[in-house]
């Protein structure tokens, strides 16, 4: 369990979460990026940029 950086709600991350993975907070809906797995840390995920894609 870790707290959402925006609303402080508790989040359950997948056990196999990796750095760079993005999860959504179920409470406030914000997208959070896993910036570290050891220790576990989240940060607000960057907005989708115009050149992002496939």
């Amino acid at each position, binding site marked *: 369990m870790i707290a959402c950086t925006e609303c402080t709600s508790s989040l359950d991350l997948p056990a*196999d979460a*990796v*750095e*760079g*993975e*993005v999860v959504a907070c179920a409470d406030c809906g914000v997208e959070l*990026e*896993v910036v570290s797995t050891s220790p576990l840390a989240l940060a607000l*995920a*960057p907005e989708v*940029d*115009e*050149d*992002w*894609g*496939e």
Partner: protein
Amino acid sequence: MEPVPVAFLASRVRPEEKLLLEAYARRGVAVRRLDERRLALPLDGSPPPPELDGVAVVHDRSVAFGAAVHALEVLEGLGIRCVNPAAVVRACGDKVRTSARLARAGIPQPPTRLAFSTEEALRVLDEELGYPAVLKPAVGSWGRLVARLNDRHAAEAVLEDREVLGNWTHRSLYLQRFVRKPGRDVRAFVIGGETVAAIYRESEHWVTNTARGARTRRCPVDGTAGGVGDLAARAARAVGGEVVAVDLVEDVDGSLLVLEVNHSMEFRNSIEPTGVDLPGLLVDFVLAVARERGPADARRTPAVAGAGTP
């Protein structure tokens, strides 16, 4: 795990990147993660940063086209082999370049024009393409900013928006005849020159991206001339693509036309309907390149001939 000199370039880890990392792990291969946001590369002949020590091959999965194309170009200059090569990413990430390559290779596309002013765009639409037509940003994905121009009034409004609100990249007006597709398009996956799988993307909406909610179903890979397998492989070859996804559309007469080629393709919705282990095949391709490339100490000479020239 087996130390293999492969680095995995990605910032945002989508389900695809996670599946690829899992595929490497299943093969007992420890890849080094590289995040372009935390990477500074030498442009002046200085030694490469320590993150690149021992790296012979970079598997690019960056979600950001601009960063990826620059990073890969510099990495190739350092003698590192990239999959896909920088020139392929450059050709696929810009629809103008993609179309130019496809045209040069004689690959069928919908009637498509490039204009640089609203006036010329309207003339081309009125006199050559007709309505409806589609305006696409040269750089972009997931159906963003793709506009259907049903008539001249719509075209005038959208073009004015682009002129006033867009940035310089929106001054290259990529215009295409609207294809009345049968509620679906086709995505074909090409790995190492072979079309390994394809899906139909079905939607009631005229935009059939899975990012916009399209459903997926297996599409047979027809290798006969002009079929999905053949055309996708030829389109991949036209852009130099080693691992790409080719989007095709069926015209009203049933003939296939190529719409675009994706260098960092998403495939999360394509594994189950096709039954093809796409992440496994992609990883096996990169590992084969790494074996062929050899150890990183051979990386002082550029690996890809002509990589710096589109």
